[in-house]
Structure formats: C-alpha cells, structure tokens
C-alpha cells in the first residue's frame, strides 16, 4: 500500500458515490457507531483492537436481518483502481449482512488496499489457496436500468460506506 494507492481508492469511491471515512483503529468503533443507522447487524471484525459498536447485532436472526437498516462487515481487501471491496462469504454471515440491509458499511485495513485488479486476483488466489472459497467483488451500490432509468438499491444496498483503518 502506498499513499498513492489509498488516494486512488478514494477517487474511485468518489466516482461511485460511495462515502469513505478514514480512521485509526482506536477510534473505529466510535466512528462506526456514528455512521450506522439502527437497527444494525454485523459480523465480528478481525482487526486488532477494533470491534463492532454495541448497538450492532451479531449473529442476527432472519427477522433481524430483514429489518436491519445497516450491515457492517470487514473487507478482506480492496482494489483501488475500481473502488472495489472484497467481501468473503463466511459462516458468520458476511454475505447476507453485506447484501440485505439498505446500507452496507465495509471496514478495510489500509494495508489491504491493492492498486489494481491484477493485484486483487493475486489476493483472491492466495485466499482460495488458504482455504477460502467465496469472495464477492462489490463495487458501488446495487443498481438497475431495467425500469426505464438508472435506479440504485435494487436487491442489494442502495448506500455504501467504506471505512479505512489507517493504521491497520
């Protein structure tokens, strides 16, 4: 990761109308709390010293998932070139939690931002070799043009925020 890569990631997200927030690991929980709208669901975050806010329900029920306004998940890595976050399907429910609520908040370590899609596939191949089996490249909001105009928020989130952990 270089400053340049983070800057490129920020510009890509800006073009996608995805909000981006930079924070230290220490401040991350408070920052997430300020971003989310309740009810919120999430999965435990794997970053040292970072936990999801107390208002977030982990291991939600199907009913809680369906009612949630915000879903918080980690991103295993991000691709600066396209403003993409890589969400891994895990038993904790990253995939449905990033997909069902109207607002998806993805948390990514700055060191996990790679410059381009080639580097992204290198990371993906590494994860698959290490036993991972499913990753979604999510880029911007869910969208359709099938109803006579571009509309965001179809089956997936209409709003996306990326939180970058500057010191992770």
């Amino acid at each position, binding site marked *: 990761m270089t400053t340049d890569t983070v800057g490129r990631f920020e510009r890509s997200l800006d073009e996608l109308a995805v909000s981006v927030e930079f924070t230290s690991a220490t401040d991350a929980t408070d920052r997430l709390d300020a971003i989310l709208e309740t009810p919120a669901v999430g*999965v435990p975050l794997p970053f040292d010293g970072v936990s999801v806010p107390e208002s977030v329900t*982990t*291991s*939600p*029920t*199907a*009913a809680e*998932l*369906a009612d949630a306004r915000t879903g918080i998940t980690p991103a295993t890595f991000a691709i600066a070139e*396209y403003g*993409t976050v890589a969400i891994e*399907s*895990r*038993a*904790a*429910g*990253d*995939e*449905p939690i990033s*997909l*069902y609520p109207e607002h998806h908040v993805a948390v990514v370590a700055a060191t996990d931002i790679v410059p381009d*899609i*080639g580097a992204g*596939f290198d990371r*993906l*191949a590494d994860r*698959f070799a290490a036993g991972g*089996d*499913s*990753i*979604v*490249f*999510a*880029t*911007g*909001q*869910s*969208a*359709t*043009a*099938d*109803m*006579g*105009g*571009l*509309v965001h*928020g*179809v*089956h*997936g*989130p209409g709003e996306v925020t990326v939180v970058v952990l500057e010191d992770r």
Partner: protein
Amino acid sequence: MAERSHAPDQSDTSAAPNSRAETAAHLRHLLETEGEAIHTQTSVSNYRRAQVYDETDNLDALRTEARAIKEDAIDRLPELIETVREAVEANGGTVYVADDAADANAYVADVVEDRAGVDDPEAATGSKEGEAGDGDGNGNRPSVVKSKSMTTEEIDLNDALEADGIDVTETDLGEWVLQVADDTPSHIVGPAMHLTRKEIADLFVEHFDPDVEFDTPEALTKFARDHLGEHIQDADVGITGANFVAADSGTIALVTNEGNARKCAVTPDTHIAIAGVEKLIPSVRDLEPFVDLIAKSATGQPLSQYVTMLSPPTNSPTIDFESPDKPLGGDDSTAATNRDREFHLVLLDNGRTDMRQDDQLRETLYCIRCGACSNSCANFQSVGGHGFGGETYSGGIATGWEAGVHGQDAAAEFNDLCTGCTRCVDACPVKIDIPWINTVVRDRVNRDDDPEAYDFLVDGLTPDDEPDGFDLGKRFFGNIATVTKLGSATAPLSNWLGDIELVRSLLERTLGIDRRRDLPTFERQSLVDWFAARGGERESRRRAAAAGPEDRNRTSELDREVVLYPDIYTNYVDTDRGKAAVRTLEALGIPVSVPDLPESGRAPLSQGMISTADRQASRVYAALAEDLDAGRDVVVIEPSDLAAFQREYERFLPERSFERLRDNSYEICEFIFGLLENGADSDALSTGDGDGAEDEDGNRSIAYHSHCQQRTLDLEAPTTALLERCGYAPQTSSVECCGMAGSFGYKREYYEVSMDVGDRLAREFDHGETDLVVASGTSCGDQLEALLERDVPHPVEVLAPNSAV
C-alpha cells in the same frame, strides 16, 4: 398461455412463410413498436463501451488474453469437465452434465422436488395436487427463485418446471417484467429493453392492481424489489446461471448489478447453477481478464457492481425466514461438516460438443454473452432482438448460437440482418469474427435451399461456384460484377430500362429489389477504358513527372508507383471518383496504372457465397502478384474491397500471399495522407479556401461519413486528417453504419430497416451548416444522396486538383 406477439396481424400476407413481404411486415411492426426504446438503450451502451474502451490502456492485451484463455479452455474441454467434477464433489456439491434441454430440465425438476420434500414433507404432496391448479401463489407448491440466465432461456426451463408443478420467479427485474408480460428477451443483457417505463407501469397496474402510483423508475423498482424479496425469502431452491466456471476450484463467477443473483445463490439452502459447458475456464486466476472486460463491453461500466466468485456449497449460513428467530452464523471450522447446504452444477451440452468440432462454429463458444455485438449493430439498434434474433439468442453472435443449439433453420430466419459491416468486430471482448460466422451460416443455408423456378433468370448472369437453387436475389447481388459490366456495356439502354415501372416490378418480384430504390446509373465508358484511352500508364508517368517532383527534395518514400484497383462501382458506375483519384495521385508525382482486375469477392461474400469469393481472391492475387513483386502499392477506393483484401483474404490465400497484399494495399485517402506526411506538396490539391461556410479558423465545413468496414480497419482517421490538412473542418458521423450496406438496402424485405438506419445518419448531417457532404463508400453515398436529396461525392473528388465539387 400464448406468448406476446411480436408479429403484426398477418392476415394480409397470404404468401408463404418467410416471404419477403412477411419479413418486411414483421420488421416494420418492430420498427414501429420497439425500435425507439431499443435504439435509445443500445446506442447509450454502445457509446459508453466505446468510451471506456478508449480509456483502457491495455484493452487489446486484455482481449487477446481473454481470447487465448477461451481457445485453450475449449480445446481442453473434456479434461476441464472432469476437473470441475472432481473439484465440486470435493467441495461437497454435485455436477451433472446434461445432453440436451430435456435432460437438464428433468434433472433440475428432480432436485427441486427432492429438496422441497426435504424442507416440508407436505409440500411434495401439495405439488402433485397443484399440477392442475392455476399456479398462482400456491404456498404448497415447490418454489424456485432465479437470477438471469440465457442458458435457462435456451432450454425453456421455466416452462418445464411449471409443467412439473413448480413455481418459478425470475428475480432480475428485466426478466421478471418479461415473465409477468409473458414476453421474450429482446437483448442478451437487457432482456426488457424494448419496453418503455410507461409500458412496464401499465403492465404492473394491469397485473397487480397496486395502491401506489408508478410514475418513476424508482417507484417501479421499489415495488419489484418488495414483491421479489418475499419470493426469495420463501423459495425452496435458488437457480442461477454462471458467467464463468473455474474448473480447478469449482468456482462459479456471477456478474451482476442488481444483487439478485447473490440472494438467489445464498438465501435458500439449495443452489443450482446452470451453465453451458463452454463457460469452463481452467482456474480462478483466469477470471481476471474476463472480470475486467465484461462490464466494459456489456454496458460501458468499468466493472460490474457485483462479481461473485463462490465455490459452493459455501460456509455462508442459510437464511430460513420460516424460522425468523433462529440466529444466523457459525464457525468456519465446523461449517463444512454442519452445513445444510446443497449445490448442483448443471453443465449443458445441447449441441456444444458438435459446435466444438465444427471449425467454423467453434469460435461461437468463446462468446461471453455481453451483448456488445448487438449494441454496435446498426440494424439491431433499429429492430432489436425480436427481429435480429432467433429462438433464444439475439444480435450478431446469435447466428452461431442458434445454428449450434437450435439448428440452422433457427439461424436462417434472421441471419440476413447481418450486413457484414464488421462494427461488432472491434466491440467483441474475445475478438470473435462475428461477420464471418454469419457468412458461413448464410453459405450453408444457401446450399440447403431447394432450386426455385426462376433460376433461368439469373443463370446467365451468375458465373459463380455455387449450387443452383438458393435465393435468386442473393445470387444476383453475389454476381453483381457481371451485372454491372453488362449494365455498363449496354448503357444508356440499361439505365432507361431501370426507370420503367414494369421492369422494376419484375425485379421486385423475382430478385426482391425494392422498387423504391433508385438503381445505379451505369457509365458507358468504364474507368479502365477511360484510363487506357487517355494513354494508359505511359501518359500517367508523363503527367506525374510533369507535376514537377524533381524540383523538390523528394524522399525515397515518395518514389512510388500505384496500381489503382478498379472496383466494380468505381469502374462502371461512379467513374468520377476513380478519375479524381488518378489525377490526385499524378499531381503528387505518383504514376498510376488502372488494369482490368477481377472483382474482389466482396459481393459474393456478402451473400454467403464463400467458394465464389475464395475463387475471386485467388484471381485478384494472381493478377496483382507481379505488381506486388515489383514493389508497387495497391490503392483502393471502395473500403469494402480493401476490407476483403485485409480481412477475409486471410481465410482464402496462403499466409504469405495474404500478408503481402495486406501490407501493400491502402485506402486512397490513407495513401494520399501518407504522401503528404512524407513531404509531398499539398498545394497541388484543392483546398477548402473557396466558397462555403467556414469555421472560426477559416476552414471550410464538411460533413464526412466514413464507411463501417473502413472504421474497423482504423482508417477513418487518415481521411479526417487529410481533410483537415487541406483546409476543411470535417464533422464526422457517429452512427455505426449508413444502413445501405451494399445490397442490403436494395432488398425489398429490408428496405424500411435500411431507411430507418439511414435516417439517423441523415439527421446528423441535416443541420444546414455545411453545403458539402462526402462519404467513402459507394453505398453510403447512394444512401445519403437518397436521404438528403443532394450529391454526395467521395472525399477524393473534393480534394482532386481543380475540383469542381
């Protein structure tokens, strides 16, 4: 239930099926009902693709890499099928290779019935009772939610499942609209793009009688989302297609924007992915160029919203909305042993193995179904996939798919809508020669046709290498060189004949030449004869020397000799542009020869007469070999003939012969621009400092329409640059094709499509800002002359010394 009709009331067309009149009526109906919506959407996607392609530095490398991966994968297909079987089974899933549609449908129905029974033992009984029911919202019937998949359209999966008492709900918004309307896809990527927002709103109001107003796309989308969300929550099984399947890890790649495929894949406990066998690639690492390309080529987006790469069954928890209080989540280390997920990969053959063994159709299997060939096609933009499409697939590549999976007859119905303009060649992300596939299938269709009663009419005019019996009009146009030569020899009689109503009526009935088209006016003296009468090569050498080049410091680059290729239109119909080319070259100090050379094969090629074209290629090369050996340059005025030399001849000539001709042949304006770049003096040419409208820099405005095949050869820019250099301010057209496309616009069944396409070009130029309109192709010029009611010369006629244009 009957499908929504895309054909007009045919009671007024009593002729045999697929008669010219019936085809014309069908296409006219589509132009009126769907053309505008289709054009709006395809032209935007086309524009965006061109833009994002331009912005992508390594585009060509990506396309080459993607192509190479597909070539390798199809080559190794049997091996990859075994690899993916092992990988999916190791993951805990099942692979089923289905021979055909019935086989695939039966397997899927079995899985659904089995899983619905496991979920709720009463459901299986319910399904048996439900078979006679109306199929609407019966909670006891097994239910399936689907994401968009052309492969399931190919096998009519929905109908098969419904017949088995299974409820199916499409969750892609466009596909769902079609399901509600009982309609069929009009585009591979945007299946409902032929419907306007208002038509969709009216459909929903009629069908659902909702409380809300559907006055915006947002309102429609929200309604659809809520409605479909419930179906996804209740479904027993989720069915998706697969954009790609990575064999070594058993990974399915799904490329979507809405997110419905993700929901279908992970919400129910059972996921069935259905993919043609050609979707297999060796590994996840091979996905990269495809993921990078597919959104660019499909919609012009840099990347799709969601690229899901999952190797099911996954650890992701199933979501049981019937037990709303059960927490999701678990532990990855135990998920694999505890999970209740089931995954089935259905790999469909349905003709693909045969396509793989067919040297001409194999390339179709590289298709990633992005729809770029549809978006870049002028005819598709006018009529959409209900006209330019078969049972399932649409657009240029559909000819290959339909011939392969549904049989040649399915392709024959629409194949003639491909004019061979080649604009899809640059658009295709895997570099498939789509026009060639169309030519091959046309050739095969020709050979299968029965002899017709009127063969004697064209027999004398058709010294071709084709069997008797196929479409007379095609045979006529394929042998147009002979016709044109005869027309010239008998001018002006031939021209008078063309003005007689009785003759036009006969031509329309027998050859299908639409009587609304002006026929070409033949010149009595051909260009070759004019050149010979003027003193031939010796006179040209004298004139070139007299232009005074020895006074200047001419570089060796300018020490050249040109063979001007007398294409049949330049030679017999539009001799003025040939004369202008000769005079221009001579004025720049270049001696010219204009030998009597064979027709290039372009005309027979466009009618699917491959063996005739092959023969012509050999004749042309034989006639030019000595000039090429002597280092002379072959200069061509008609872009479609140059395109034959530089593209199709690769398939007809030995590699060295092809390369020799390709490397030494030039488009006329490209050649002249090259001379000026190498120091030739442009003072000899006519410049834009004369009368007429000028821009702020004093350059004369001129409207220039390049030629479709010329653009594919990247040869529009030299003409534009040449015009600029000579004091003109060219305005270029943005439409892909003029709609005339050689013989296409003359044909009765396609006249109106041709005019619809042409109208869009005419509107771009019809501002009254310029009094000069030029075009590089003969038929482009004819089309513009008909639409704008004015002369439309070739650019070289404007630039020639002492030009009167």
